[in-house]
């Protein structure tokens, strides 16, 4: 994919080269991508059908697997393969559609997904910080916008009160850690 920002140990950079490709299986079936790339991202609907085959093939060839979720897909459907999937792409049909933030939370915090979580679609500079908080690790910036410019969106001030994937403790717990006096108060009754 082009126009991509990736996070590596917290640092964001524009990716020089990225092997992943979205596969439109309607045309290409599960056959290797037209360009011959082995890094294919399948939509969940196709993934369901092909997962067994794909999973087997991946074992045999060590070919990495990628899945695309649409906003109304249930991330829990990926639970059986969560450790073997290398990349999950979540789609923002419009940047106003915030379902992928919750999908990201569920994938990371509940299903324990550790691979690359990519935002695709209407991905713009001013939402990147929120995406990063929810566990996204790469951002395919909308085609007509510059990824270089969007990088600035990740550079600025970033503080939240609540907890997030990137920041698993809410501020009221982080605060204590930062040395404010007070008893340490564990959760639980």
């Amino acid at each position, binding site marked *: 994919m082009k126009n991509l920002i990736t996070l590596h140990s917290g640092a964001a950079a524009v990716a020089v080269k990225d092997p992943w490709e979205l596969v439109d299986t309607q045309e290409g079936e599960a056959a290797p991508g037209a360009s011959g790339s082995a890094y294919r991202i399948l939509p969940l609907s196709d993934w369901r059908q092909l997962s067994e085959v794909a999973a087997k093939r991946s074992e045999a060839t060590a070919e990495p697997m990628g899945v695309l979720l649409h906003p109304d897909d249930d991330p829990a459907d990926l639970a059986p393969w969560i450790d073997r999937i290398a990349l999950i792409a979540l789609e923002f049909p419009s940047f*106003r*559609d915030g379902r992928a933030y919750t999908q990201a939370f569920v994938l990371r915090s509940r299903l324990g997904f550790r691979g690359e979580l990519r935002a695709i679609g209407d991905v713009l500079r001013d939402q990147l910080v929120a995406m990063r908080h929810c566990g996204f690790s790469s951002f395919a910036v909308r085609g007509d916008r510059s990824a270089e410019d969007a990088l600035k969106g990740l550079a600025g001030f970033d*503080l939240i009160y609540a907890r*997030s994937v990137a920041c698993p403790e809410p501020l009221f717990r982080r605060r204590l850690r930062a040395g404010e006096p007070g008893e340490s108060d564990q959760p639980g009754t």
Partner: protein
Amino acid sequence: MYKYDEYDRALVQARVAQFRDQVARRLSGELSEEEFVPLRLQNGLYLQRHAYMLRVAIPYGTLSSVQLRTLGRIAEQYDRGYGHFSTRQNIQFNWIELEQVPDILQLLADQEMHAIQTSGNCVRNITTEAFAGVARDELLDPRPLAEILRQWSTVNPEFLYLPRKFKIAISSSETDRAALRAHDIGLYLYPGDEGEMLLRVMVGGGLGRTPILNEQVREALPWRHLLTYVEAVLRVYNRHGRRDNKYKARIKILVKALGVEAFAREVELEWEQIRDSAGQLTLHEYQRVAQGFRVPDYERLDALDADFGAWLARDAAFARWVQTNTRAHKVAGYSSVVLSTKPAPTADQSTAPGDLAAAQMYSVADLADRYGFGEIRVAHEQNLVLPDIRKRDLYALWKALVSIKLATPNIGLLTDVIACPGGDFCSLASTRSLPVARAIQQRFDNLDYLHDLGEISLNISGCVNACGHHHIGNIGILGVDRKGEEFFQVTLGGAQGKNSSLGKVIGPSFRAEDIPQVIERLLETFVRYREVEEPFIETLGRIGAGPFKESVYSGPDESTNPAQIHTHSRKGEAMA
């Protein structure tokens, strides 16, 4: 009052810088209007009919005198000299230039205020009632939890692009004065058997074109779970709320579609997985925030003050004002005072309900310093409150309020109208609601008559969006457009508070000029059937809407009452 710490300050300051950059990018054309819209909305900036409107949050309705002076300064320097207090404890400035917004936000941030999330499809300003912490009928102080919620919901990254706006209110008084049941989440705070703080969680309320009162999904939730429970509700909503139709996108539609039991099950399922997470509140945090709401240094006073009693006996106008515009206080010798923003219009002056001039803001700030503890509250009914006034100072305060036209003794009465800005400002309006409010206030300016009528709420919205809460007014007036002409539909029987209910349409709608006449006939009917001191809503409940409808549509007697009321009847228009 809660004071910002270094984190709070850093956040609002950074937000100003961020929005300054976004405005610059918009002005340079780098950001399209379409991309800019959600960004400006999340910073409280609307485009209205004539200009930008900036909505500033007044979290749980609490202002310091310094903050109120800052609002006055903004009104004076950047607007046309006044501001408009809304029903959700916000203030709106109607005539704002985009280029100046960053400077205004800077002024706000310097005084620990902001406009973050006062608009847009996110969690909005957390509201409570104006008498929180001082009302005699209060069970527990809701303000610390309101502030905790404010912080939690501010820039909460998962919930910034919800299907639709999301409003949360919390209250803890015998009579709910925060319209809890009209909110997406209404939280009722009460003590358990051992005095521990518990919450009743009600979800799925909202007005707008499909008015619905929320329903209970959880009883006796321990306060420590406040944030995780709200998180669970929002997560279920964010995943499953409709996004295909903005009129069906509020959480109330989801709750109705699933049924409240099924919805509650979804929420509980989600909550079970996070209830013991790091999101659970700590006592330490509660205490840290609660410090900001410590009881001020009240004097030990007698419940009765001799001077005050003497003035009550001597000055009937004062006594009347005390009766309508003051409220019982927790502490002996003190009262809470309501400042009416709804004076009877005069030939040369008429202001919208909720409007306050900069000069009035400065004066109120001074009075709060002089007679109170420098604190001011904003009420859901678009009035201001001075929460802590010694009874012995009431007379002097009253004199001062009279001189700045904020002492109209009409709180809770017919002319204490709630009204939205309507077509004079709002670009979504079907009708102009303010002239109707004005006509009613003009027609019923006889204070004796108003006092005799007793408690009655009249709410006006300029269109189906229902910003004026017409569904929960005893008398509700809704402006509708009929082929380019303005008509007004009347509902009866709405109520907020413990016995909340939604009003029902009485029949075909009316022309603006006939509304005062319609109201008059409704009131005549009320007076005719009223038993002793019965409030309007009880008479209506007892006799039903029938006699009221009849009085309006048949008229008492055409020969003695020639005023012909023009109605607009559309085929199939609901009569009930």
